[in-house]
Every structure is written in C-alpha cells, then in structure tokens.
C-alpha cells in the first residue's frame, strides 16, 4: 500500500513558495485579519460566468478550461483540462485551454495560498478543485435538461458533451442547454466519479492542446508581443555582482538610429528603442562606469576551497553563519565503531538557460498597470509591481503568456526582470508598451543560479556494511535571501532530499547539518531544487557503500528501504528493473531512486565511456505519481527531465571569477544536444492515490544513475559535477 499523497506531500512540495509569499506579504505591510488572497485580490476583476472561474462554455457547446497555472512546457494545461473534461463529460476533442488572469484569491494555488506555479504542484493542488468544477457544471446541465424535458435527473446521462435521456430518446448538446443550465444553482457538493469510472483520465487520449500552435509558429510568447506604438528596451547590467552605476555617457548610444531614450534604473542603464536591434546597438554604444566598491568579488574555485574547509571543520566561518542541524537521530556524541566511509562532493553554480531569455512587456501610466509575459508567480509579480507604481496589487493586470521554459527562473520573489521592465515603462509613461528583452548574455551572467554546493559525509557501517551512523555536512547558499523576511533557521530547500531520505531513516545515528553562507551571487530554485545535489549525494553514496560491503547496489537499497518502510521506493525500483530486463551487452548499468515533490522515481541507466566521456544509451524510468492523469505527458516529463538533469550532470557549469560569470552563452555553457540524448522508456506505477507532480522529480535521478554505472564499470566514484570537465 502506498503512502497517501495528499495535503502532507503537497505541502512539503511547496514549502519554499509558502515561505516566499508569506515573507513578501509581511514585507508589504498589509492588513491583518484577512487571508492573503482576500487582500491581494482587492481591485481585481472577479466577474465570472455561470460555471465559475475555471469553465467557459460557448453557444456552440465548446468547453474552455481556464488554467490558473502557467504552461512553460510541463504539459499541465493538458492535465488540468482533462480533469475538468472527465467530470463534465465534455467532448475532449473540442476542449480548449485559456490562461487565467491574475487573481490571488480565485486562482490561488491551494498549496501556496496565492497564485503561482511551482514545486510540481499544478495538477496536485488543482485535482479536487477542478473535479468539483467539472462535476458541478455537469450537474447544472443535467438539472437543466431534467427541467426542460420534465424527466427525472437520475435518468439523464452525459457523454462527450451531449446530454441524453435514453428511454425518451431526447438529447441536447451543452450549447442547446446553455441558457437553462446557467440559471441552475450549482450543487454545494457535486457528486464526483469513482476513479474506476474515468474514461479520459489515465488514457493516451489526454494529449497536449498546444502542439499545433507550437509547431506552426503561432504560439505566443513574450518575445512575440507586438503592440501599437511599442518600444523595445535593453539594460546594460553590472559586469560584477554588487556593482552599481557610477556614471554613464549616452552620447553615442543616442546617435544610434532608432534609439529613443537612455536612462538609469536601479539595476543598470536602460536603452529604449524603436526595435530590438536598435536597442542592442544602442546598448553597445553606451558607456557606463561602474562602482565596484561594494562587490564581494567571489570566485568559484575559492568558494569550493572554503566550503571544503568549513565542512571539514577547518578555517574560519563567515560572520553570523552558524552550522544548523537539519536532522538528528540517536546519540551523535557517541560515534559508532566500525568501517568508515568518507566522501565529499562538489556542485557548481548552474544557469537555468531557458530557451527564451528573460523578457517582459509592461504598460504603465495613463490609467494602465499591465504586464504581459510568462508570469510564474503572478501574485508576487503583482506585489512587486504595485510597490513601484503605488497601487493595490490586485489592480496590476497580468496577461500570462506561454514561456519558453522556466525551470524555476521565472518564479522569482524579486520579480527581477519584470520589475526592471516596470521601472522602464513607468519612466516612458502614458501606458506606452515597453518590451524588455534580455539577451542570452544578460540571461546567463546576471543570474540567478543553482547555488554552488559542497557535501561532506562520514558514515560508519556495521559488519554487514549497513550504516550505523551518518554524519552529513552541506554548505550552500540559502534560496531565501532577498525575501523581505529571510527565513530564520533552516532553509529547507537546501537540504530536502538528504533530510527525509529513507537511508537516514534506516540509520540509527544521524548528525546532519547545513551551513548557509551569505554571498552576493544571486541564487534561486533550479528544476528539482535541493534534490539537484542531495539526490546525487545520497544515491551515489549508497552505491559506493554497497560496493564496499560487497553487495549488489539494488539489493542493498532494497534492504534499507525495507528497514525505512519506503514501500513506494521499493515498488518503483522493482518496476524499473523488471521493465529494463537484461543489461544490453556492452553497456554498464546504474540505478538511482529519489522522491521529490511527493513523487518517487527510479531510473536504470545504461552507460558507456567513449574516449572517457559518458554516453547514455537507454534509460528505463518508473514513476509513482499517484493517479496518472496524462500518461503521455508524464512520459514527456520523464524524457525531458532526464535530459535536463543529464545536461547538468555531464556538462553544466557556471563559474564565477572575481564576482563575474565566465560563461556568457551556449558556446561556453554546454548543454545536452540531440545526439547526446538517451532513449527513455517510462513506466507508471498504478496507483489510487491523489496525483502528485512530474515536472521536477525526473530531473535529479539521472546523474547519480549515470555515476553509478561508471562506478560499476571502472570502480571510480564521481565526486564533482559536471562529469565532463572543461
């Protein structure tokens, strides 16, 4: 029996966002005694149709599902629409999806309390809400038909958008009954289908609704927004973290044809032009002198050396930076006697490197406060905008578009690039549209990054090779810096995945601590967050312990999972191995298993070393994400997540030197390309539990699976990522 995947795991998956939003609210000094959504939605439009804020039905009977979540690749729009269509018994082929407006209350993420997408929560938090919305609308059509036909509601059925009464032969489409249904009072507790009665959910019919638009060039991204009288802006950003504008000379920039204005904003100097190329040329002609007196001028090599020392108890810790215990069991003052295993692991800064560099369109002034862009946490973006333009957050209108990826980057509590655009549009004034365009170089060098991270472990094993005591030190920046009320104590996102690991649960004595130095290098969650490093450390360490004990890594894992009661881990590992079958001749196999965001994923990777470089051929993934709504998209997320994780594991590295980023574009920040992508087979564990997310959990498992395959091949452990140096 699987563990329930309900509020508990939803909550754990979104803890960091709750903190973010809570912190932002406090910082905004808002009223006391109301819910955040009530306050933040003040002034927002809230006139919805008869079927509520999530469903629109046209006169032709066509159903449009309103998504409160942004679609930036995860496929959530397909899943969200399918939940509604299932309970409504709509004709799936005609269901459309529209992006919701910003509204902190009506469109709140239930796991967060305000509107936002992240923590792989879109489907999980919407599950009951959209089932109820669909079932409620369905009941309204049934009641309308019953009244119109003077027949018992119990005898009326709905299928593919057609309401019927079998005995009398009467039938009508949603469009035919629209006026009558709209007058029916929605049921307080609509009757939901039993999952076994689902005809759409869990089938291969649940496919993306945006594939056509994304294959013919018509899908609209922020970069594509063209509005009458619109200006395009670029910003000259500081070359080092912490630098500010000392002075600038715009003489040459203003001579560039098409440049309209040049002015300073808090984060640099903005060049506003008639079009993108003019803005870029203007920025190149601009001369800025930077004040670097407050720059900390960090370097990755020095940080790695310092982190290594601190984790080993050497050197002097930075001020106000204490070690903090994040998990403890047994008596850590009495270390066990036995075989000792020690290891340290290093992880670099990573760029999200979304295909669409950051951008935003803003119209400020003349009665308008509107943003048009890929807004991941609209409520936070509303708040940050409201502070600049001095209005109620709810009155900041946001039109959310598709975004060309995010991987966490657009979910930023500072709304960094959006705020930049708001400052520029405010200065331009009059509600004139301004599109801020970041170049790839801006995107890669300005941040934000997955933090550079160091782990150090000392594990004492018993006579059978199983851990008796586990000492663990993590050094990494907190992701909460810069929020109005930074977290006191542990930032859970820095340790999630080590904390709560079944391996620690199975170990009698645990002493796990984290040190969070405060640097001026901006950091942020990066697809799968803490698990980007913790999963690697835990899964690669386990393989080394198993081999040291002379045990098969799978059997070793299963023994620990049994001890920890980690039944879902056992189930996905067994499923992945069963489906993987025999090892392909000539390939080395590694496995890894990790739970994140309430979803457990096992991966079996087959690897060769070609001229010393790992080549990953086949990956078999097994996933337990509760009830599978869109199996095809779950597979897509496993395929894509594996590529994203493998890209980082093999090649991903941002290095900082003297406070500046050394990589500026894809020529120096290597990412996975088509010929390097493995062939992924996804298998979904049947489950009756509530759904959990799939956007992130596939990511962190692949790198340790590959490292374990290399360990099996040549006995060499991987103690730093990326695997391919230089």
């Amino acid at each position: 029996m699987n563990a329930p995947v309900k509020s508990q795991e939803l909550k754990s998956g979104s803890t960091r966002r709750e903190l973010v939003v809570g912190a932002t609210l406090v910082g905004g000094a808002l009223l006391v005694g109301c819910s955040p959504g009530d306050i933040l939605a003040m002034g927002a439009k809230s006139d919805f149709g008869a079927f509520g804020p999530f469903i629109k039905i046209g006169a032709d009977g066509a159903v449009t599902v309103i998504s409160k979540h942004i679609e930036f690749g995860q496929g959530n729009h397909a899943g969200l629409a399918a939940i509604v269509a299932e309970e409504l018994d709509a004709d799936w082929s005609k269901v459309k999806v529209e992006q919701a407006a910003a509204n902190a209350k009506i469109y709140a993420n239930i796991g967060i309390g305000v509107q936002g997408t992240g923590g792989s929560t879109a489907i999980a938090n919407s599950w009951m809400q959209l089932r109820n919305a669909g079932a409620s609308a369905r009941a309204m059509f049934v009641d309308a038909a019953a009244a119109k036909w003077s027949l018992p509601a119990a005898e009326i059925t709905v299928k593919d958008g057609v309401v019927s009464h079998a005995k009398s032969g009467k039938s009508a489409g949603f469009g035919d009954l629209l006026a009558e249904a709209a007058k029916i009072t929605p049921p307080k507790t609509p009757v939901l289908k039993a999952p076994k009665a689902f005809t759409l959910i869990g089938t291969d019919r649940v496919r993306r609704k945006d594939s056509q638009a994304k294959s013919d060039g018509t899908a609209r991204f922020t970069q594509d927004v063209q509005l009458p009288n619109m200006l395009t802006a670029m910003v000259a950003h500081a070359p080092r973290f912490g630098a500010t504008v000392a002075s600038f000379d715009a003489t040459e920039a203003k001579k560039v044809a098409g440049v309209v204005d040049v002015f300073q904003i808090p984060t640099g100097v903005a060049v506003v032009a008639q079009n993108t190329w003019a803005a870029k040329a203007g920025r190149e002609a601009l001369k800025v002198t930077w004040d670097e007196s407050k720059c900390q001028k960090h370097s990755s090599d020095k940080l790695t050396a310092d982190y290594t020392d601190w984790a080993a108890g050497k050197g002097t810790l930075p001020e106000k930076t204490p070690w903090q215990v994040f998990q403890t069991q047994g008596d850590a003052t009495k270390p066990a006697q036995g075989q000792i295993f020690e290891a340290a692991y290093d992880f670099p800064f990573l760029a999200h490197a979304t295909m669409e560099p950051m951008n935003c369109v803003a119209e400020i002034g003349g009665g308008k406060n509107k943003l048009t862009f890929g807004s991941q946490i609209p409520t936070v973006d509303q708040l940050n905008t409201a502070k600049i333009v001095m209005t109620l957050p709810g009155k900041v209108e946001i039109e959310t578009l598709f975004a060309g990826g995010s991987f966490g980057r657009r979910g930023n509590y500072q709304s960094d690039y959006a705020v930049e655009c708001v400052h520029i549009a405010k200065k331009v004034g009059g509600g004139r549209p301004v599109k801020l365009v970041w170049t790839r170089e801006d995107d890669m060098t300005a941040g934000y990054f997955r933090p550079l991270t160091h782990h150090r472990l000392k594990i004492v094993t018993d006579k059978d090779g199983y851990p008796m005591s586990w000492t663990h030190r993590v050094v990494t920046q907190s992701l909460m810096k810069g929020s109005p009320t930074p977290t006191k104590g542990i930032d859970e996102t820095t340790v999630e995945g080590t904390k709560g690991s079944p391996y620690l649960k199975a170990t009698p004595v645990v002493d796990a601590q984290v040190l969070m130095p405060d640097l001026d290098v901006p950091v942020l969650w990066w697809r799968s967050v803490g698990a980007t490093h913790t999963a690697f450390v835990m899964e690669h360490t386990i393989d080394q312990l198993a081999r040291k004990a002379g045990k098969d890594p799978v059997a070793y894992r299963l023994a620990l999972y049994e001890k920890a009661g980690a039944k879902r881990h056992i189930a996905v590992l067994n499923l992945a191995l069963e489906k993987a079958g025999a090892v392909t001749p000539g390939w080395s196999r590694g496995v890894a298993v990790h739970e994140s965001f309430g979803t457990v994923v096992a991966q079996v990777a087959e690897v060769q070393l070609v001229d010393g470089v790992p080549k990953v051929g086949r990956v078999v993934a097994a996933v337990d994400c509760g009830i599978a709504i869109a199996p095809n998209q779950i597979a897509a997320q496993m395929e894509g997540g594996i590529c994203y994780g493998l890209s980082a594991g093999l090649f991903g590295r941002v290095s900082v030197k003297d406070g500046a980023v050394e990589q500026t574009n894809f020529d120096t920040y290597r990412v996975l390309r088509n010929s390097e992508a493995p062939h992924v087979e996804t298998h979904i564990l049947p489950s009756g539990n509530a759904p959990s997310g799939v956007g992130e959990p596939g990511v962190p498992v692949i790198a340790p699976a590959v490292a374990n395959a290399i360990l099996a091949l040549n006995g060499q452990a991987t103690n730093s990522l990326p695997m391919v140096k230089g």
Partner: protein
Amino acid sequence: MATTLDINGKSVAVSAAPETPLLWVLRDEAGLTGSKFGCGIGQCGACTVLADGTPIRSCSIPIASLAGVKIATIESLGGSHALQQAWVKHDVPQCGYCQSGQLMSATALLAKTPKPTDADIDAAMDGNICRCGAYQRIRAAIKDAAGLGDAAETAKA
C-alpha cells in the same frame, strides 16, 4: 535605404540597415514571429530558417548577404506539413520555443535525405538546442514523417 528580400515566396522591401541580422527583420519588421531569438550567436538554432533550402541561423546573418536568396520561415510550412503533423501526433513540443527552428532544420534534412538514418538526424539536428529535452520525440517525429515507422513514445502504465 531599403533592402528587398524574398521571404516565403514574397518580395518584401525592408527598411532595416543592411548589417541587421535577418532574424530581427523577420520578427520586428516583417511581423513573422515564428522564428525565435535564443542566443544571438548561431549556437542554439531557435532562429533557424532556410536560405535556398539550406538551414541558416538567422540571428547571425545580415540581410545584406541575402539578396536574391529565397528565405523560408516556419510560416511557410503552412501548418499541416508532414513534419508538423508528426510533431503534433507525437506531442513533440513542451515549452515550444525552439520548435520552429527544429522544424526548419528537419525540413531541410528530409528535403535532402528523405530516409534519414540516426546518424543523419544527429548531424542535421545537433545545432538545435531544446532545453526541455524533447529530443527523443523530435527524432521519432522525423522518422514518422519520413515514413520510417511510428516510433511513438508513450508511457506504459
């Protein structure tokens, strides 16, 4: 100073300076926003269009060098090209931002090599980055459009 370009079979007079990269003329002046800006240095392929049938990175090619060259963008495929149908069938796109470029590279590949091998696909498609990692489906869709079988990638419950 007008430059005349042949875009999707139409003669288009544009006012941008001759050194302006084609991408910005397509997007900002011709209103053809299907081709995307990704890196600006010809490394990611999001801006890929065809020049006399050959894939080029439009972010790095000044319009001055394109006189008399037939330029084809994603908009020229019409929406129901065999590759586009395969893209939809396989649900290739995730965020979708790179897909116009992927499709133009694939179009050039199939025009030259109607039955591509995996090595042909590697060579033709490695210039197009997809950060969502839709690579496996891109490969499957190309093979499907080429009539090399339906290697649909679906999850098995």
